[in-house]
């Protein structure tokens, strides 16, 4: 719709509004409304001011204007024509007050369609389609009942009695078939009860249901709109009730009228506001392109979430070699399929790049997510590569940790094999040699006896060496009694004094082993190179991190580069997600600190 057409529509609406206004003033403005109730009619008016008529006409023009605005946004769906049609019908409805019988007949018949259509607009907002069979049924019932009942009234009505809410005296129905005002009045009562009472109540119920079922984002957007339309519909229900029940003095006819006007105006403002918001969201997508350039990869989700006004939005990046989606930190994400969260997948040359997991209400404007995704595509591809790298890094990290754990396990196994296998056999062998020695002693062969004595001594040395070897591979005391015990044993055997400050608690095996080997290697270096006189070993756990610190006051100059075992230790510590810091200035002692994350 071009701008000219929109302006033309508005001018037409305004002109029509003037006509409607004059019809209202002429037909209604100077008269008294006779509002009937069960215990007799009471009168409202005369309406000495033209305020009411003006307000009624303003609502109609507002519908047309809102429809024109809607048409100019991306909501170029059925909602915009529906709103414009509602506006014109609304204005046309006022022509039923005309004294011209043709106009009266025509607009008495069709005028109430304006209410049914306003309800239709509310139910169809914002997609332009009603949601399910209940809403469809209600809309159809609204249109049908208006036409049917008003047609029936016109068949019987000949202008001698006052109808509810409206006094068309002295107007003639062109459709008059059998003049019987009593029948016409009865039919109108049924109509009021059905349309203004029942259907309006059902309408309010459906609106409430919609609010309850809405997702948080949709609820935020819909709340003012639904409230306004419910207020407008409530007036119908009240007026229906007061057709059959005496109106309490506290609820004036006039007040309810203004409620309804207020409700409709608020409803339209809410619609236009919503449409402009959507347009702002699209404008936000434009800004997104600029903003994305400044956004670090891991905050892409936040930026998109802000641009699309969906706080729950998440980005899942596709990792081809894993065949799964991951988040910005490389953690696996399973795309939801429950319908509570919607998923929009983004492809590039047929290859998946990423998926947006978002509030389903975003899909009411299908171009919006697409536009945002298009704007973000480059950044998303970039971020996907980052996420993929992170995922690989995480895998490598996990496999490093597994390698360390497996190596420890292997060391433990070797230690057990040495003790329970080779060592055991050597001792048994030694015992057999002792028996042989005894036999040799009995046979009085001192030379053989001596030979056996020497063999057993050698065997003893072999057993001792094996024991030392096993201890170096993986000390049994570490497995059995933990880090503190193992370090105590280490300190006890050390040729130089070591001051220990270690908490006696059990930690996960890889952590204990890593901490032990760090201390072991550091102390071996102290013994070999540093000529230190004061050596301390401390190990403390704080906030889930075990810190092992080995200090000496020796010559310093140690580093992970110069081929010492420190590089291997750093690898080992890093494999568990920790770090090794070596502070060893020449001549200034050596301080080695290992920080190892440990869960327990």
């Amino acid at each position, binding site marked *: 719709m071009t701008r000219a057409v929109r302006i033309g529509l508005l001018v037409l609406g305004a002109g029509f509004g003037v006509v409607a206004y004059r019809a209202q003033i002429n037909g209604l403005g100077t008269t008294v409304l006779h509002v009937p109730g069960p215990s007799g009619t009471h009168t409202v008016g005369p309406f000495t001011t033209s305020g009411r008529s003006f307000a009624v006409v303003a609502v109609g023009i507002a519908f047309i204007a809102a429809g024109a605005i809607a048409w100019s946004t991306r909501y170029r769906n059925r909602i915009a024509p529906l709103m414009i049609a509602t506006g014109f019908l609304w204005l046309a409805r006022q022509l039923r007050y005309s004294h011209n019988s043709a106009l009266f007949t025509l607009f008495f018949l069709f005028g109430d369609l304006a209410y049914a259509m306003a309800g239709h607009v509310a139910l169809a907002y914002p997609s332009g389609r009603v949601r399910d069979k209940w809403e469809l049924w209600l809309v159809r019932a609204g249109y049908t009942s208006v036409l049917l009942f008003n047609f029936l009234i016109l068949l019987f009505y000949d202008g001698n009695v006052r109808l509810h809410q409206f006094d068309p005296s002295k107007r003639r129905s062109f459709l008059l078939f059998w003049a019987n005002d009593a029948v016409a009045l009865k039919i109108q009562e049924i109509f009021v009860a059905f349309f203004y009472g029942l259907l309006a109540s059902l309408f309010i119920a459906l609106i409430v249901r919609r609010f309850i079922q809405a997702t948080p984002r949709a609820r935020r957007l819909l709340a003012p709109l639904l409230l306004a339309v419910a207020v407008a519909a409530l007036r119908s229900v009240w007026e229906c009730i007061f057709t059959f029940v005496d109106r309490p003095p506290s609820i004036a006819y006039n007040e309810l009228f203004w409620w309804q006007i207020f409700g409709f105006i608020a409803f339209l403002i809410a619609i236009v506001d919503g449409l402009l918001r959507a347009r702002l969201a699209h404008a936000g997508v434009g800004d997104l392109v600029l903003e994305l350039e400044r956004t670090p990869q891991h905050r892409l989700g936040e930026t998109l979430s802000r641009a699309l006004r969906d706080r729950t939005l998440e980005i899942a990046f596709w990792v081809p070699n894993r065949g799964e989606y991951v988040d910005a930190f490389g953690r696996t994400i399973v795309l939801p399929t429950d319908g509570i969260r919607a998923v929009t997948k983004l492809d590039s040359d047929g290859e998946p790049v990423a998926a947006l997991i978002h509030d389903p209400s975003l899909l009411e404007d299908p171009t919006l997510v697409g536009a945002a995704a298009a704007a973000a595509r480059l950044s998303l591809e970039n971020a996907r590569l980052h996420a993929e790298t992170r995922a690989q890094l995480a895998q490598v990290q996990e496999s490093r940790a597994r390698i360390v754990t497996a190596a420890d396990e292997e060391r433990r196994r070797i230690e057990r094999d040495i003790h329970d296998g080779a060592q*055991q056999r050597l*001792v048994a062998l030694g*015992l057999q040699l002792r*028996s042989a020695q005894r036999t040799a002693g009995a046979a009085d062969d001192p030379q053989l006896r001596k030979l056996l004595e020497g063999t057993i001594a050698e065997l*003893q040395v072999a057993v001792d060496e094996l024991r030392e070897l096993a201890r170096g591979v993986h000390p049994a005391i570490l497995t059995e009694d933990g880090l503190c015990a193992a370090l105590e044993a280490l300190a006890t055997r050390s040729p130089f004094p070591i001051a220990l400050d270690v908490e006696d608690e059990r930690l996960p095996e890889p952590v204990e082993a890593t901490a032990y080997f760090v201390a072991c290697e550091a102390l071996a270096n102290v013994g070999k190179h540093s000529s230190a006189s004061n050596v301390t070993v401390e190990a403390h756990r704080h906030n889930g991190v075990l810190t092992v610190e080995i200090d000496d006051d020796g010559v310093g100059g140690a580093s992970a580069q110069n081929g010492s075992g420190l590089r291997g230790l750093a690898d080992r510590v890093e494999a568990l997600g920790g770090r090794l810091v070596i502070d060893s200035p020449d001549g200034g002692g050596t301080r080695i600190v290992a920080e190892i994350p440990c869960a327990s």
Partner: protein
Amino acid sequence: MRVVIAEDSVLLREGIARVLTEEGFEVAAQVGDADELQRAVKRTKPDVAIVDVRMPPTQTDEGARAAEEIRAQHPDVGVLVLSQIVEARRALKLFSERPEGFGYLLKDRVLQIDEFVESVRRVGRGGTAIDPEVVAQLVGRRAAEGPLDELTPREREVLGLMAEGRSNKAICDKLFLSPKTVETHVNSIFGKLNLPQAPDDHRRVLAVLTFLRA
């Protein structure tokens, strides 16, 4: 003297049994795991149970736990724990406050048959047999500070042998000293360490070990 041997290596178990039999012991039972050991001790009421620390099914410390239970349930049965490695910390935990009728030795000490047999006898009589390695660790731990510095090398040697659980006579034999000299050393050690003189060997071991573990 009756012994029960618990050791899962058949070769070694039979070797120990043979040695002990040749030395005049009665081997009342040979078993391969902790449950069998408990039953054998209950059934045969031996003077000494010789127990390997590691036994099936987990090969960790079944033997050590079985030893603790035997000491708790049968106080008159001596327990000699054999291990591939000895740790002072383990030793202290195992005999807790009661070194009587308790031994803790490296497994390969069985090759020094005379000493091993003497250790088994000592434990069987309610005495103590602590591995020299453990004693060395304990002495090493205390060496950095205090009164141990005041001991002469010979006195330290005597202290170690006392801590192993040896009697004066055994110390005499080991160091080729006269009983009187040993007596002098012992008195001097107790004086320097400020320990009360103990009336018998059991309490002497306890006093020395208590001093060393402190």
